[in-house]
Structures are given as structure tokens and as C-alpha cells.
């Protein structure tokens, strides 16, 4: 058999068999495999992209978190500062009020003392008058003869009484 002359029978079978096998494999063989692998490749690429996105987002999240913590801290200091300020203000106000109250009370006490003093003086004067009237009565009831030593004694007595009454009054 010649090597370089194609044989008709073999040609016929080759076309037939190769054609049939090609038809079957092109329909149910290769497209299934390549299709699935292409699908899987696309899926893997998508997954990788998604993973990258998620990583980015996670990075952003950490940044966001840090930012929020920073903000919270700033807020905290602000609030603390405000609280301190308002506390100082309150104390200051309370102090002022207390000062006012104290001075008002002092004033009141002073006026009351003055009034008390006045009434005491008035009392003393009344007592002195009564005493003097009593003394006078007693003196008059006694002998009014000895004028000069009598008068001397009277003066002494009235002085003593006045001093004692004033002393008691003041002690009260």
C-alpha cells in the first residue's frame, strides 16, 4: 500500500467517525467542561474581588471606629469642662447668696440689737425714774431735816442703783 496516497475507505471512516465523535463531544462534552470551568473562574474572580472589597470596608470601618472614639473623647472633655464650669458657677452663686443672706441676717441682728438696746435703755430709764420716785418717797417719809448729809446719801444711792441697773440690763 502506498504511503502517500490517501486510501478512500479510511478517509470515509475517518470523516464519519471523527464527525460523529466531534458532534457528540461538541454538544455534550467540551462545552460542559469549559463552561463549568469558565463559570468557576468567574466565580473565583468575583469572590476575590468581594474579599478585597470587604477588606477595604473593614479598613474603613476601623478608621471610622477610631474617628468615633476620638469624637466621643472630645465630647467627653467638652461635657466635663461644661460640668466643671457650671459647678463653679453654682458654687459661686451659692456663695454670693450665702454672703447676701449673712449680711442680711447681720443687718437684721444689728437692728434688733439696736432696738433691744433702745428698749433696755427705755426700761432703765423707767426703772431709774421709779427708783428715784421710791427713793424720794422713802427719803420724804424719813426725816428731811438733815439736809446736806441727806442729800449726799441720796445722790450716792441713786448712783449705785443706776450703775447696778445698767449693769443688769447690759448683762441681759
Amino acid at each position, binding site marked *: 500500500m502506498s504511503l502517500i496516497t490517501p486510501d478512500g475507505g479510511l478517509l470515509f471512516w475517518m470523516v464519519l467517525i471523527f464527525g460523529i465523535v466531534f458532534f457528540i463531544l461538541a454538544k455534550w462534552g*467540551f462545552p460542559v467542561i469549559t463552561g463549568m470551568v469558565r463559570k468557576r473562574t468567574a466565580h473565583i474572580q468575583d469572590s476575590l474581588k468581594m474579599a478585597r472589597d470587604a477588606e477595604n470596608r473593614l479598613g474603613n470601618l476601623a478608621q471610622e471606629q477610631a474617628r468615633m472614639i476620638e469624637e466621643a473623647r472630645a465630647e467627653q472633655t467638652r461635657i466635663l469642662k461644661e460640668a466643671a464650669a457650671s459647678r463653679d458657677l453654682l458654687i459661686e452663686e451659692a456663695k454670693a447668696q450665702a454672703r447676701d443672706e449673712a449680711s442680711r441676717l447681720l443687718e437684721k441682728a444689728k437692728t434688733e440689737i439696736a432696738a433691744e438696746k433702745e428698749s433696755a435703755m427705755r426700761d432703765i430709764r423707767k426703772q431709774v425714774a421709779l427708783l428715784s420716785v421710791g427713793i424720794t418717797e422713802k427719803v420724804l417719809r424719813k426725816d428731811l431735816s438733815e439736809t446736806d448729809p441727806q442729800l449726799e446719801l441720796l445722790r450716792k444711792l441713786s448712783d449705785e442703783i443706776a450703775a447696778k441697773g445698767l449693769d443688769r440690763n447690759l448683762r441681759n
Partner: protein
Amino acid sequence: MKAIRSIFLLLALFLPGFLLSGQETEAEVNFSEVIFSHIGDSYRWHIADFGNKHVELYLPVIVRSKTTGWHLFSSKKLEDGEYQGFRFGSADGPYAGKIVEQGVGGAETRPLDISITKNVLALFFSSGLLLLLILLTARWYKRHDVYKEAPTGLAAFMEPIVMMIDEVARENIGEEDYARYSPYLCMAFLWIILNNLLGVVPLFPFGANLTGNIAITMTLALFTFSIVNFTGRKEYYKEMFLPDVPLFLKPVLPVIEVFSALMKPVSLTVRLFANMLAGHIMILCIVCVIFVVAKMGPALFGSMTVVSVIFGIFLDFLEFLVSFIQAYVFTILSSIYIGIARAKE
């Protein structure tokens, strides 16, 4: 070292057998006939010899005579000469070794011959094997969720091969319509490499020299040629018949272009055919060296046997490489030709 020593030991073990068979072979061996019968087609398949007993498979002959119609019979019937008006062509005639019909006036005529020859049977085997391999792989993908499982077994083996050719198609044909041509290229590559490799395996039902047969490579090339020229874009034909060149070149270029388009399948045919045929002939020659030196004394016979076996192993590895390279080259060239026909310019 250990491996080499064991190889030599193994060869020494076979030497007496060779010596014995060498002594038995008294008749002159026609080596070119031996080689050509191995690489050529045949109506029977010689499987092995056990002593003097030939184990042969006689294949069915299917012929259609112009005068007597269809005939189907075993080729064993032709061993004793004529059967139903058919016989083997005489050795010096134009149809030596083929089935001929005694025409009027004593001339030999060829009937329409679609016999199941050795090559056709090998074609059945290898095509069935390819069909099985790919359909089983495809079945794996149908039955498993590719998002959840990595391919195992056959699918894991076939996937990279198929995807390699798919990638070749994508690179050479373009993103747009490579998916349409990828099955053909995969088919061509796998079919060629499978038959190249099976051609080197010397055991039945393999070892037929399919891809070293011009009818086979011609069919493959014609498939590529048809796909290129029947699915090309109109730009491709315009470039071929109405090229944008100066007026005096207009009648010349189409001739050249058409000639080049016709030469492409011829080069595909001859490249694969010649490479595979040469590989087979080389291996057979190296093996024949053993029988050539058989009569030249035991020393030369023994040493040459070792040399030729080692060289034969080396050539088998070379064939292994060539099998891949030729299948790959055929596929790449096909994809490039398709890419040219599908180019938009």
C-alpha cells in the same frame, strides 16, 4: 547507577531469548517489508507470534463491486486466493496489497472499498476511548457543584488539558467568538495526541499508525480548512479577493491568497503525517537492527541488542514528546488560521 545496573541485568535476561529466536530465523527477513507492514494499513491485525503460531485478527471486508453490488466477508477467505470474485492485487500491480476485482480483459479494478481495516478498527478504539474520557469528565461536572468541589480523578486530569486548548483558542481567535471554535480545537488536539500516543504502544488494540497515515491527517486538515473557509468573516474574503492594493496587483494577489489558503491544509497534513511516520519508522528500524545483526556473531548481536534497546527507549521518549508537540502545533496553527478568518479589520 543502581537503576542503570538493573536495566542491564534486565536486558541480559532477555538476551538468550533473542539468541534463540535469531537461530530459529533461518529465512532471509525482508526488513523494508516488515517496517512497511507495521506502518501501513492491513486487512488483518497481526497481534503476536507464539512460536510458529501466528495470532491474527481477520477483519471484515466491505466492498461494493460495480457489477455485483455489496459484499461483506472475512478477510480470512482471501488467504487462499479468490473469493466472490475478489483477491489481493498482484505485488507488481498498482493495487498491491489491496483488494481488487478481476475486471474484463484481465485488468485489475478497485471496487469501492470501505473495509474495516486495521487502521479503521484502531480508529474505532481510539475514538471510543476519547468519547469515554471526555463524556466521563463532562459527567463529573454535571454531577458536582463546581463552586463547592475541586475536580477529582479523571476530571482533575482532563481539565488542565482541555483548558490549555481553550486558552489557546481564546488567545488566537479572540474573546468574542472563541467559545464557538474551542470544542473543535479541543477535539483535534485530544484526538491527535491520543492517537499519537496509542500509536507508540505496541500492544493490541493499539499500535496502529493512524496519525502517520495521510488519509487521516488529510481529513483533519480538511476539517480545519472547512471551518476556516466556511465560517470566515466577509473581511477575510474581501482581503482575499478584493485586496486594497494598487491596480496592477489586483489580479495577482487573489491568486496568491487562494493558493496560500489551499496550501495551509496541505502543510498541516504533511507536517503531522511526516513527523509521526518518521518516528514510527525510526523506532522500527532500531528494533530491526537486532535482527539484522543476529547472524553476525553472538558478541556483536548481544552488544547491539543492548544498544538498540536503550536507543529504542530513548526514541520512545522522543516519540512521546513529538506526540505532544505535533498535536499542539496542529491545534495552534488551526486556531491561528481560524483567528485570521475571524479577524475584524
